[in-house]
């Protein structure tokens, strides 16, 4: 069953939000971050990236901080940070649940 909007994050959404934790980034920086962090395991298409950025901005998870020529830079908001933490905890629980199961 697919996840509802921002009730839970997809893998791409999770990594893109993660990209803003330590610094403000533009779209290209985000892709590079995700690629490096996941060792190219998670691929993010340009359409996916910009749809997520638009969605995050609309939902107040990130905000635009600078526009230089073609480049737009975004920063995570308090709301975005909260969402990331919740998702992190949820994923941690998932992993712990898996570790506690002897059949794994």
């Amino acid at each position, binding site marked *: 069953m697919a996840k509802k909007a921002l009730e839970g994050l997809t893998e791409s959404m999770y990594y893109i939000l993660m990209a803003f934790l330590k610094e403000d980034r533009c779209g290209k920086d985000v892709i590079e971050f995700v690629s490096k962090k996941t060792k190219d395991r998670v691929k993010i298409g340009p359409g996916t990236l910009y749809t997520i950025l638009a969605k995050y901005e609309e939902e107040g998870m990130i905000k635009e901080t600078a526009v230089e020529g073609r*480049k737009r830079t975004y920063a995570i908001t308090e709301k975005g940070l909260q969402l990331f933490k919740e998702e992190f905890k949820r994923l941690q629980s998932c992993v712990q649940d898996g570790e506690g199961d002897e059949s794994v």
Partner: protein
Amino acid sequence: MRTRWRVMPVDTCDIEGVSNYFSKMAGKGYFIKKIGTFAHFRKGEARRATYHLEPLTKKETRPEEELIAYFQETGWEYVCTITGLFHVYVSFEEEPIAIHTDHVVQSYAYEHLHKELKDSQHAMIFMQIAATLILLAGVFLLPDPLQSMITSPVGLYQLVLVQWYAYGIYMMYDKRRKIKRIATQLKEGRDSLQNKSRHKRGYAINYRPLISWGIVMVINILLLCVGLYSDKESYYKNLDTYEEELPVVRLAVIEESTNLIQDKSTTEGIDYRNNVSYKWSILSSNIYIVNEQGVVPNKTWLDGSGEYMPSVRTEFYELRFQFLVKPLVRELDDWIGKNDLEEEVIHEEIKDPRFSSLSITKRDNSEIIVASRNNRVMILRYWGDEELTEHLDDIYTAMTME
């Protein structure tokens, strides 16, 4: 540089179909450049091309430059924008990089587009409905909507416009429905857009919108031309200069008086009391309206109210479609039977096998006969002391005149 204009053979909301159509054209050396009512292709060297339609996430006529640049870096060139719906991108790579790598996220884009369409269409749909109601009111709030449509092309023109508006509303709704369906499918994890386009590379031809708009346009143009041509053939003449036979019962016949003389009221050569007008319309091949007023010297009205000045007005319709006869007669009877003046009104159906229908309405100082036979309808309004029912033979003769 050669260009080619083509009617879009695919519904613009058939994402897969549109992409495949553009790819097919590229394979023939025609590359899409602009899309409006028509698709505008630029001639070039035939090559393999993959197209992608990306839903608009905001009101814009082209994507942001940053987005264009980033798409470029991943091998996708921005081509054009289908107004209010999609940005079109092309890739000439053998294996183009996937623009979307997350179905759930892609569904957001479609949901967003669906919401935008919904919001922007609400106002448009409201205006369309308002325009439709105004047009319908313009026809059906008249006391004689059918008679108006028969005598003037305006009513018909309005009805065609109503259909046009109704179809426009349906088209808007249909687009939204299709976008919503794609969003739902993506959310459910069904990547119908990309997989199908890779394997099938076909598209369903759909000229329905074009044909529908075309039919309405042709009807409108025809109505306009017929209206203009009909006006050219219509005439208005003084009765004393009119020499041909008319499908009416003349006042002299009703009065049976040799003393009857025309009571003229002429201004700038036009006799407003004794005249004949003729025209035809889309619904009626012959329409005659004849007014006649006379005076019988040395005779007074039966109630002694002054010099006797009888008059008659006859409307004669030869309808092109017989099914219009009954509703027209019903409409005339209803209208004539109305009593706004609080006078005594007696309405009576007359059985006469020579007519399809025949009725007489008697008021204080007038009598009205509505008669129909085959595709002909006559309304005879008479102000005088004679009895119209004594002239049914004359009415029959007028109605059967060749």
